[in-house]
């Protein structure tokens, strides 16, 4: 979604302007953005720095001990409960981003290449469900997958199963299904944007030179749309690692994720430093995973060419 903001550079002043004027342009531009910039510094950068600082401290009941220690990280990385939660969160978010991107690509392709006059209508149709409350979308999956839920009563009505199955809800599969649904729109839009930028004459050229539709897709369209695939994967992967609502509502015991543990440290367990260390660890691991994803997709892109 940053594409629109970064896509086209601002209009340059026509002709050559002298340096002092350019400088005053720069000063004006910076002055104009500074309130927003300062807001982001105070409410985003400062808080994250405070979290990082806390992760190196310890807590005795209500007082924070400011002595530097790595104890919290030792707990976060070696205690089985946190290690398992981290692994599960990573596994779930990786599966969800793979699924969402794989399911979204054909839709983005269809809209971009065969949408015709109805492109904007298709896009609008896709964005609507995203604008309904996240909480309620998760809730409706609970209604669908529950013991007395729509799917169970439907399957029983059709005679496929004789008694309701409790295997549908309260596990990591339920979390994966719900998240895949919740993030679909976010995956379609960036892929669509990059497919729109694919030069159609290149596809034609490939076909003219004897490539079949599949080959020209694999060697021209797919590699050229890699930037969209990358942003789609990241836009889904990073937030889903830290999802709180979905595991809480449909995850049950087997679907608990790291965000639930972080919340517990700031709530009931009241161990802020440990919560901070878990947050920092999650952010670092997510960044590593995101970086790896970018590298892998770029490598595949080069292979395809």
């Amino acid at each position, binding site marked *: *979604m940053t*594409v*629109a*903001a*970064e*896509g*086209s550079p*601002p*209009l340059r002043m026509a002709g050559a302007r002298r340096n002092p004027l350019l400088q005053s342009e*720069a000063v004006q*531009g*910076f002055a*104009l*953005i500074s309130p927003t*910039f300062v*807001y*982001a*510094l105070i409410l*985003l950068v*400062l808080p*994250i720095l405070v*979290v990082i600082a*806390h992760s190196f401290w310890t807590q005795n009941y209500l007082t924070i001990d400011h002595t530097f220690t790595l104890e919290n990280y030792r707990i976060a990385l070696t205690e089985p409960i946190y290690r398992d939660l981290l692994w599960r969160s990573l596994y779930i978010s990786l599966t969800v981003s793979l699924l969402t991107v794989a399911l979204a690509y*054909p*839709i983005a392709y*269809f809209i971009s290449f*065969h949408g015709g006059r109805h492109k*904007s209508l*298709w896009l609008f149709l*896709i*964005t*609507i469900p995203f*604008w*309904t*409350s996240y*909480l*309620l*979308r998760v809730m*409706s*999956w609970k209604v*669908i997958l*529950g013991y*007395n839920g*729509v799917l*169970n*009563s*439907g399957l029983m009505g059709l005679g496929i199963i004789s008694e309701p199955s409790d295997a549908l809800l309260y596990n990591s599969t339920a979390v994966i299904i719900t998240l895949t*649904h919740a993030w*679909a729109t976010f995956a379609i839009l960036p892929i669509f944007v990059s497919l729109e930028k694919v030069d159609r004459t290149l596809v034609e050229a490939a076909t003219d030179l004897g490539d*079949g*539709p599949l080959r020209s897709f694999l060697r021209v369209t797919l590699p050229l749309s890699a930037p969209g695939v990358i942003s789609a994967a990241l*836009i889904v992967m990073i937030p889903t690692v*830290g*999802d709180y*609502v979905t595991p809480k509502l449909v995850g049950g015991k087997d679907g608990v994720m790291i*965000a639930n543990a972080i919340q517990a440290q*700031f709530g009931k367990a009241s161990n802020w430093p440990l*919560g901070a260390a878990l*947050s920092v660890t999650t*952010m670092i691991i997510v960044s590593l995973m995101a970086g790896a994803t970018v590298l892998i997709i770029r490598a595949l892109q080069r292979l395809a060419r």
Partner: protein
Amino acid sequence: MTATRRFLPGWLSSYATLYILFLYLPVIFLPIFSINTAATPKFPLSGITLHWYEDLPKTPALIDATWNSLIVGVSASILSTVLGILAARSITRYRYPGRRAINGLIMAPLVLPEVIVAISMLLVMLQLGLSLSLFTVVLGHVLICIPYSMTVLTSGFEGFDRSLEEASADLGESAFGTFRRVTLPMVAPAIISSLLVCFTISLDEFIIAFFLTGTEATLPIYIWGQLRFAAKLPGVLALGTLLLLASFVLMTIAEILRRRAARRTQNEGGLHA
């Protein structure tokens, strides 16, 4: 090969239809079970009733939550749109070192786990001695609304014909006069669209409100509290249906306005770009 060409779109369009169904399926169950007489959401419906809707205005906690959500939504959307206008104008109009980095920082909340954004703000606010209230929720919502506001506004500001502003200045308008009489009318639809988008996001936002609110509940927090009681489910579904309608209407207006803004400045983009 022409056969595959013809076959492919057909196959793709049925996939697209199925996919749209998958997207809408869970959403459709909200209104359906909100008019069911039984409290358990299962088929077949035991009867049709509107009494879950009739109960809504009789719940004082819900009325309070609605007011709180409106206050937070209006404040957050105005604040984030003002900050968004400044930033979007600066990004699209000026060129200076560090422009991309600053833009990246402002857009960052879009790709950070919300829980982490929420708890880090919570820590700072507690350290600063701010007591948690609707005000702190507004501060948090502004932060996560700015990226959306920026996206809508940059698409409205980009491709904006600067010669119009220059002409106005040449004809003797002051800088403020030019902004009010030339720039503002051109970008007004984008601004209204940004207000609506931010309001909708704030209205639906749960995690940040959950961490940053004191005793006052917003609508999603009220809903969260109700979800624990199975018997309250139909009421929640009725409320959800109404919220769904509100979001849908607001977003449709926002999208129409955004397109009008984009057409005025001969530029396409925005939420879809």
